[in-house]
């Protein structure tokens, strides 16, 4: 860990201003990801701006009937909120499938969105990794890639985004609100929030250095049967090999997003049209994974996506959507 300076901001404006003032500054939420990366010197911020006292820990109803989730709301609190549990069950289900109780007590909404990949080559600073050291090559591509992406990957990087929460947010068409030091605010649709790796896997989003996430907004409830199915090697406390977030409606329409397969939560319009037309898990998965480029180690994920989707659709049918 490199030595760093630290300050505790007391308002979003102050936090953004501090980030603009100090080069190499980073916000810290729960710290459950950032501190680990700092100990390994994968992240080396010169300055930390603590964003836990910005008053961003409320969940409020919006005028149009949606929900505005403060960036600092803890994963545990978000999952337990009755409005979320009733109207956005896919989000609660995704959250409680992630990490452990202790971590969820600490993890924030913004931090969860911005957590970095769990690629083991990214974590081992002796290894080649374009994401950690641009231009050094991708250790995983030639090495062990059982966990890695099968769609949307590039020759530079095949990492996945590890968040469960983000997959549910993608399914729900959430929007991410931000503010900068000059007071500019914007709302980024979740589908545009995370980037694909392309030639610049080190850039995972388009936020500016002084851009603070203030909230995540959910549109009004859409009903339907909301499911999150996370598939992993052990029963708990493991990242998804594949996950499926789905909102299935009585008329056959559905929103489906995948986790564990790409550099961002994966959702494909043609796949949902396929479902609406009466398509099954096979044809829908084929549309979701069009252009997939699995490695030898993770070819199983192609099959697994289809099978998990089939499980989710069967479960939705059983729950009588």
């Amino acid at each position, binding site marked *: 860990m490199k030595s760093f300076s630290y300050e505790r901001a007391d308002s979003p404006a102050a936090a953004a201003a501090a980030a603009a003032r100090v080069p190499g500054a980073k916000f810290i939420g729960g710290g459950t990801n950032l501190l680990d990366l700092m100990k390994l010197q994968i992240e080396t911020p010169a300055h930390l701006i603590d964003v836990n006292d910005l008053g961003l820990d409320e969940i409020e109803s919006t005028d149009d009937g949606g929900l505005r989730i403060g960036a600092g709301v803890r994963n545990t609190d978000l999952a337990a909120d009755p409005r979320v549990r009733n109207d956005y069950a896919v989000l609660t289900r995704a959250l409680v499938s992630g990490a452990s109780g202790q971590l969820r007590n600490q993890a924030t909404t913004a931090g969860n969105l911005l957590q970095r990949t769990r690629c083991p080559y990214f974590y081992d600073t002796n290894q080649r990794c374009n994401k950690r050291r641009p231009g050094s090559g991708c250790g995983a591509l030639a090495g062990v890639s*059982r966990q890695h992406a099968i769609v949307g990957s590039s020759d530079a990087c095949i990492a996945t985004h590890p968040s469960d929460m983000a997959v549910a947010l993608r399914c729900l068409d959430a929007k991410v609100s931000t503010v900068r030091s000059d007071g500019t605010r914007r709302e980024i649709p979740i589908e545009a929030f995370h980037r694909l790796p392309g030639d610049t896997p080190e850039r995972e989003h388009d936020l500016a250095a002084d851009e603070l996430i203030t909230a995540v907004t959910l549109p009004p409830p859409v009903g339907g049967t909301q499911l999150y199915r996370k598939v992993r090697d052990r029963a708990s406390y493991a990242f998804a090999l594949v996950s499926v977030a789905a909102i299935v409606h009585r008329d056959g329409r559905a929103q489906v997003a995948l986790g564990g397969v790409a550099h961002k939560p994966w959702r494909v319009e043609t796949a949902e049209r396929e479902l609406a037309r009466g398509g099954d898990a096979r044809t829908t998965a084929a549309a979701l994974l069009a252009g997939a480029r699995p490695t030898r180690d993770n070819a199983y994920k192609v099959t697994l996506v289809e099978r998990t989707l089939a499980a989710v659709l069967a479960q939705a049918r059983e729950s009588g959507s």
Partner: protein
Amino acid sequence: MKFDEPAGTNPIDQLKVVGRPADRIDGPLKTTGTAPYAHDRHDVVQNQAYGYVVGAAIAKGRIASMNLEAARAAPGVLAIVTADSAGRLDQGERNTARLLGGPEIQHYHQAVALVVAETFEQARDAAHRLKIRYAPAKGRFDLEAARDTATIPEKTGSGDPAETAVGDFEGAFRDSPVQLDQTYRTAYESHSMMEPHASVAAWDADGQLTLWTSNQMIAWTAQDMAKTLRIPRDKVRVMSPYIGGGFGGKLFLRADVLLAALGARAAKRPVKVSLTRALMPNNTTHRPATIQRIRIGAQRDGHITAIAHESWSADLPGGGPETAVLQTRALYAGAHRMTALRLAEHDLPEGNAMRAPGEAPGLAALEIAIDEISEKLGIDPVAFRILNDTQVVPDNPAPPDPDKNSDQTAPEARLDAGRPRRFSQRQLVRCLETGAERFGWKRRRSKPGSVRAGHWLVGMGVAAAFRNNLLTKSAARVRLDRRGRVTVETDMTDIGTGSYTILAQTAAEMMGVPLSQVDVRLGDSSFPASCGSGGQWGGNNSTAGVYAACTQLRRLVAARLGFDADASDLAFSDGEVRTASRSAPLMLATRDGPLEAEDAIEYGDLDERFQQSTFGAHFAEVRVDAYTGEVRVQRQLAVCAAGRILNPKTARSQIIGAMTMGVGAALMESLHVDTGVGFFVNHDLAGYEIPVHADIPHQDAIFLDEVDPMSSPMKAKGVAELGICGAAAAVANAVYNATGVRVRHYPLTLDKLVQNGLAIA
């Protein structure tokens, strides 16, 4: 005390304290966080500095250059140890690779430097400032590729031969009407014990080295430290009273303790070093992966006529094989047999013992093979195992001859080549029968894939458990003080197993005092040398050592109190010493000063006259998600026959812990090898998955009544490894029974099911 004839009745048989489910006497220290583990020993010596270990960034090659300037100049840095500056080092008897590498690098994360600083954070920061350039060389990292280069190993670690053959295997196999010929694979596994390797080292002005560490084998470590540093053995003191798990990963001198000593010498002050979790899988030892070919030929009535087991593993040059075929020499009958170990060289980190080395991966394969041949024969797998039970060691070809094997025969005569060796106790059949009854085996459907509960496929599996009982010398000292308290001292270790408690129970039984009146002090090389903790030999041998010392102490007490020490009715019980005619309070004996005795248990040839083994049967019920192939264990049961159970509570903990590890081996544990770069990729607990609570819903362990007079005066044997032997195969067989998909490559992760025809509907 020499133990060379079967034990007769002795004071332990009273079973007033021994054999009872006593709580751990060290429990309160652990649950209150006050047990002094190595890394917590801030108080033992003042002025401790911190060392941070730097591991090699390549798997094979050389260090081309090392620039220490920036690190030396970093805040708080006191010293930097490298192979250049460490002085001449020898290598420990039990280490394959050097613990401090450079300029030659033998494996990934081999330690190449220790940075010592005032604080841990400063040492870590400075370590990142070392500039090391490497000249990598091509290495061999793929067991599959190395298989063809494998040869017959010179040493097997256990001392057993690498090859055995009885009868005409090839011919008998060829002529068998029912045959099985399959190849199985087990994974590289990491001990992943809770407490990382950690040590504090301090030198005094006379060159005396004191080490507070976390280690299973005090005497080995003291010896190997002295040898590596080229100093006299008596200059090294090792203390390791509390250990947060080892599983074989702490049997040996490792880099933490050597580098702490070198760091302390260089910094001229005490130094504390612990290995980071991410360093452990590649820096320390692991369980080698195996490829195992098993061939079984059987008659249609189910009798095995031919059985062969071959195993391939790889290690660094100078290393040893994973002895995965050993149990096959003793477990099932069959006239024509063959086993062989093959060892290839590779350049991955050094392999070595992990809980039940040999048998754990060996039974993982063998017991699937047994399941497969039973199915081919159409015989229930429990019944098949019972049918092929043997009461003599089947690797010995002579037919049993009860007359000549009588007790009159001189020991030498019984050792004649070609004579049958019997097991001291062998209750495999009862284990299987009891387990089948208790587990509800009747309800198992023999046709795989025939039980379904919603989207779950449900199945049951069984496997035999087998692990040898090893006899090794073990010494102890016992003292009776004026207040009547008994103190036991031995360098035995408690790695979470319950040694403190069973040693206290033994002393309490022998001296006739309550458990609360016994203090046990362990893990100090200044105490008499014990057997240490490993190979499930710790429980029986270390308590027998205390038995020996207590026997001497009883003589001293008897003498002080005017009893005939050899009187047949002399008893120590309820704080008194008595015979039929007279009794005296025990404390009277120490009115004029404490009494102390030291002795060791030493063994004759009872383990050559009789095969001493422990047996068991594992049962597992699993559910497999028909869609995703996720396997979830529902129930596990182990029935064990392992001699006298000294404390059913701590023994049960050993068994269920081992069963849990068996689930890990069956379903998830695997160090993934990058065969290009040459390292274990998933080298932390995020990547190396072991079972969590949610994976282990229900476990049961049953111990059959057994006393084994051949094993020691305690009549006990080991249990700590028996519990893992066969546990993985029971799960694997249950997965097959549930799904009809036979996976022969551990771990049975879901990809192997969904890619091999797991049917959804």
